[in-house]
């Protein structure tokens, strides 16, 4: 892999002096930033929980190697402080003391070492990230303020602070957690095709949201050109989307993560997924509308739902995009309703079986028009095995007039509504009529010669 940068990652989590609070989350900060930058093509000089002498030695090594790389990156997580407008790193072997000059000359590491090293290389891309604005252990000594001071750097330098000047940032008392700023920095740096300015803007938004406005990361820049930590072309992104979805256990969540990572809608993700799949050996060619039809079905199967004009997944709104799926034409969706009937005697009654092509489970009512006849049993029935069954009693020596009609659409099951359409709009029949309140209704008038059954 082409190495386009050199990074020095310094993290101090454990301090020898018991008066200086340990910062367990800084250890994970250093490890995670190192591994992330290494995967992106940086060579790494890693310094963790280091004494002053070793730290200065590594910084000198870093400064000497800067001219060989295009991008130079300095990251620090741990205690830092400002004295008289200048910023210093606190190494692990620092002792708490009251003499300012002695402290600076013997214990602290001046960040100006890095700044001056970068100033000598103004044509490179020089990046400083400081997650060091913690509770200042020397605050009580009277010669320092909280947080870090604003740095004045040369051209070609980008400086990021975990919080605004003279303010304090949030860390955690756990080795398993990153500090707030570093957590979002690592997340956002992995998003491809974003400029460095955009990455830190996103980080600022995330940190400010989680800290409820108490921590606002800060940047200053004198970069002369655009800089991207990670670039990917369309084919690489499509392949990654395809692999993530194919290998996923929880496809629903993966879609949301991919949508946030690449800042595209979920329909766009599926489009890229199917495009990539189509181009693999054995892939079947699908048109755009077919892709969107498949995607819509998949989305609904995964548990996404539409409410108040937005799409949601597990209670959270998502960026779905448009489904430009194939809409069935009127001819495809129309249902030509057919009826035929058959009667037979059963004890003293006549059983009427009405055969129909209407959907299984569709509910119908029946009433007798002639007063001499009555229905036996229920006056309503649902289509089962493509037929409706009613029983008639009364004087069976005459003609029987009956009327069958569909029950209200609010009483019909969902599977029926899918077939017959909204308010029965798919129904096409000489036995149907339009009602402005109830939509398309079916009514069939039958005259049965029951006496012929004897």
């Amino acid at each position, binding site marked *: 892999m082409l190495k386009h940068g050199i990074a020095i990652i310094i993290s101090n989590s454990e301090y020898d002096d018991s008066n200086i609070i340990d910062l367990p989350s800084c250890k994970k900060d250093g490890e995670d930033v190192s591994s992330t930058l290494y995967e992106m093509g940086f060579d790494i000089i890693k310094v963790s929980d280091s004494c002053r002498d070793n730290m200065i030695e590594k910084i000198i090594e870093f400064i000497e190697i800067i001219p060989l790389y295009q991008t130079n990156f300095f990251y620090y997580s741990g205690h830092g402080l400002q004295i008289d407008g200048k910023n210093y790193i606190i190494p692990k072997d620092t002792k708490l003391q009251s003499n300012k000059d002695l402290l600076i000359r013997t214990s602290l590491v001046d960040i100006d070492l890095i700044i001056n090293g970068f100033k000598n290389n103004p044509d490179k891309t020089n990046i400083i990230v400081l997650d060091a604005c913690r509770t200042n252990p020397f605050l009580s000594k009277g010669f320092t303020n909280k947080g870090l001071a604003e740095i004045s750097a040369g051209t070609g330098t980008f400086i990021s602070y975990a919080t605004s000047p003279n303010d304090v940032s949030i860390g955690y008392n756990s080795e398993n957690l990153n500090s707030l700023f570093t957590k979002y920095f690592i997340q956002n740096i992995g998003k491809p095709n974003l400029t460095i300015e955009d990455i830190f803007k996103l980080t600022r938004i995330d940190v400010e949201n989680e800290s409820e406005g108490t921590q606002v990361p800060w940047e200053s820049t004198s970069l002369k050109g655009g800089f991207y930590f990670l670039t990917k072309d369309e084919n690489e992104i499509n392949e990654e989307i395809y692999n993530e979805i*194919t290998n996923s256990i929880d496809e629903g969540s993966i879609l949301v993560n991919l949508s946030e990572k690449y800042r595209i809608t979920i329909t766009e993700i599926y489009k890229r997924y199917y495009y990539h*799949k189509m181009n*693999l*050996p*054995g*892939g*079947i060619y699908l048109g755009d509308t077919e892709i969107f039809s498949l995607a819509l079905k998949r989305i609904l199967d995964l548990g996404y739902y539409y409410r108040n004009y937005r799409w949601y997944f597990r209670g959270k709104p998502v960026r779905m995009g448009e489904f430009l799926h194939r809409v069935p034409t009127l001819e495809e969706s129309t249902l030509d309703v057919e009826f035929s009937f058959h009667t037979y005697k059963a004890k003293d009654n006549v059983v009427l079986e009405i055969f129909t092509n209407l959907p299984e489970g569709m509910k119908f009512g029946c009433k007798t028009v002639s007063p001499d006849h009555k229905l036996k049993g229920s006056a309503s029935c649902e289509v089962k095995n493509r037929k409706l069954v009613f029983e008639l009693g009364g004087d069976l020596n005459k003609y029987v007039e009956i009327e069958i009609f569909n029950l209200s659409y609010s009483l019909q099951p969902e599977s029926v509504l899918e077939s017959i359409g909204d308010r029965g709009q798919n129904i096409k029949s000489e036995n149907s009529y339009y009602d402005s309140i109830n939509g398309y209704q079916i009514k069939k008038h039958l005259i049965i010669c029951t006496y012929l059954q004897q």
Partner: protein
Amino acid sequence: MNKLQLEKKIAEECKALLAELKQSNQKFDENGLKALQIRLWEIGDKYGTDGANVFNICMKHFNQIDEEQ
């Protein structure tokens, strides 16, 4: 290899797969489907495609494969 050559190679593998399935007397039930899925994906991974596409190729060349067996 171009796509056509890959397809032919995959069809050859499918021939062996179908012969294997016939000999094993595996029923076409849930377990049978899972076993088929695993085998299809093994072939897919070998040739840089996915299990569903291998199945497409198998069905596309099915008559030819069946005749040759």
